[in-house]
């Protein structure tokens, strides 16, 4: 039992860190530009497809990962310059319409290029097997994801809290007008932020590729999870995104793995059989509702 819990905790940590990669870029876009961006999930999907295709073509997972991040960063820049930049000052409805349109376009574009079948993406051969860990075996690839996730989280933290660019970003999230007054060239800052967010989402897409299916619609599921993360953590806060992502990752993974068993122990089997999966799948939403009830601004609100 302890071993199962430990393994699921690691899985939760791994999923949470990937959610953080997706949510970190998104929360800054929300926080600083006060812009709702539904197409972030499409960047994640696009990254997974680019990564899978490049890895297949080159035979190297690392090349696939780099190609995905670079490619989506470029696409992110183009999108920001051509479209999103015009939306920052529009109302939320216009932003919803435009970014929802991007989802429709992205899904069909992917189907045009790669067809309707899911793509296969294999983990690097060296990491395909398990490793021994605290007396049980755990997939080496998942450990790698955890390591990369932690490294990126640390880098982002250093970037936001210890550099001049990071100071601008924090100032922008807390008070956009003030950031403009400080003489920050916010337009290029936004473009750069958006590209960074796209690259991180693409990284998550490629890294999760071997674990989940690379298919059309994968972005829509993950987008809502990223929203839950952001709402829990507080819009515009990187720290909040990290805490929220880990909470969501662990609660979701542990809930799915353990809740049905726990319910079976305390209630009739047919009730547990019915209720268990349903309850497990909505655990994170209940968590979000509870947090909202006590702290409507999330755990770490960026704006005072």
């Amino acid at each position, binding site marked *: 039992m302890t071993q199962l819990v430990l393994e699921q905790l690691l899985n939760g940590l791994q999923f949470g860190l990937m959610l953080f990669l997706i949510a970190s870029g998104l929360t800054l876009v*929300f926080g600083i530009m*006060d*812009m*709702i961006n*539904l197409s972030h999930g499409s960047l994640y999907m696009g990254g997974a497809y680019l990564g899978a295709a490049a890895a297949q073509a080159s035979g190297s997972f690392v090349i696939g990962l780099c190609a995905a991040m670079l490619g989506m960063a470029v696409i992110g820049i183009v999108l920001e310059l051509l*479209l999103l930049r*015009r*939306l920052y000052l*529009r109302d*939320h*409805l*216009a932003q*919803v*319409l*435009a970014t*929802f*349109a*991007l*989802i*429709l*376009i992205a*899904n*069909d*574009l992917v*189907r*045009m290029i790669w067809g309707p079948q899911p793509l296969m993406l294999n983990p690097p051969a060296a990491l395909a097997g398990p490793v021994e860990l605290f007396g049980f075996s755990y997939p080496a690839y998942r450990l790698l994801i955890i390591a990369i996730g932690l490294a990126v989280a640390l880098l982002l933290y250093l970037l936001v809290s210890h550099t001049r660019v990071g100071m601008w970003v924090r100032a922008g999230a807390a008070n956009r007008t003030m950031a403009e007054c400080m003489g920050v060239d916010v337009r290029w800052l936004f473009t750069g932020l958006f590209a960074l967010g796209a690259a991180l989402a693409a990284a998550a897409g490629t890294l999760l590729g071997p674990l989940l299916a690379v298919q059309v619609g994968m972005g*829509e599921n993950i987008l*809502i999870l990223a*929203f*839950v993360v*952001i*709402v829990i953590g507080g*819009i515009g806060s990187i720290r909040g995104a990290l805490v929220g992502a880990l909470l969501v990752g662990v609660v979701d993974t542990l809930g799915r793995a353990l809740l049905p068993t726990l319910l079976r122990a305390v209630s009739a089997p047919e009730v547990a*059989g*019915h209720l268990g*999966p*349903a309850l*497990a*799948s*909505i655990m994170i*939403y*209940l968590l*979000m*509702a509870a947090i*909202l*009830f006590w702290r*409507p*601004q999330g755990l770490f609100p960026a704006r005072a």
Partner: protein
Amino acid sequence: MTPARRGNLVEAGVLLAAIALPLILEALGEDFYIGFATRLLIFALAATSLNFIVGYGGMVAFGHAAFFGGGAYVVAFLMQAGIFSAWIAWPLAVLAAGVAALAIGALSLRTRGVYFIMITLAFAQMIYYSIVSLQSAGGDDGLPLEQRSTLAPFDLASDTTLYWVALATLAACLIALKRLAHSRYGRALAGLRQNEQRMEALGYPVDRLKLVCFVIGAGVAGLAGALLANQNGMASPTQLYWTQSGMLLVMVILGGVGQRYGGVLGALALLGLEEALGLTTEYAHFYIGLALLAVVLFAPRGLAGLAGLRAR
């Protein structure tokens, strides 16, 4: 002739044409399109109910699929339990959607702006996942209806009758919407949309005004869902998924936010485009996406704005 008189005449004309439509289609031997037209009416109803929340109540709610799809599931569940009468099942669909909206709205209205959008979205996903993971709800396959609801003395088994029932429901809702917009409550909502702080300072119970609007919109969406289950012969999880909420919201924005016919125009345009493009290409959504981008950039007030329709 005053513009108001002319508007009434146009409305009456469109209504007459809509009533006659199935007879014309039958005469032309194009019965297939009666089903499509019914679908249009049902989505027009759902989009109008969302427009009430977004355009009249000023709340960008992104979880309407929960109430729309939820209404469909209520009808399917009740039929599973042996209740076939629409006179019982449809009001219960409205009630269930309303009660769900009461709970979701009360929590979500503690927040504003982008938060409100994301939270309504997340709660709707919660309803989606709880229904999909119920085995008795058919999981990913959805829940087929044994037959259509019974609506004595009418015979809903006939496609034409179902069409007329959907048309009557939509027309009744549009008339009610017009009355409501000019009532004390509608005027209060108009004030709320423009300056919430001022309304609060005048002593209006702002959150309760909004919550009631949210619940009414959800209830009508539940009714639309009940109709949709009958039209499709099933309740399907795709109607609960958040992209359905997105589609409804797109219809509203496309048609014209806060315009009385915004929802109708948007549903007509989007589903019509989908149907027409579907005849020639596999990738209809690609072109629809491009068209929507064009609307965002070049027609910020939607189709109703383009056509110069200002009727509320």
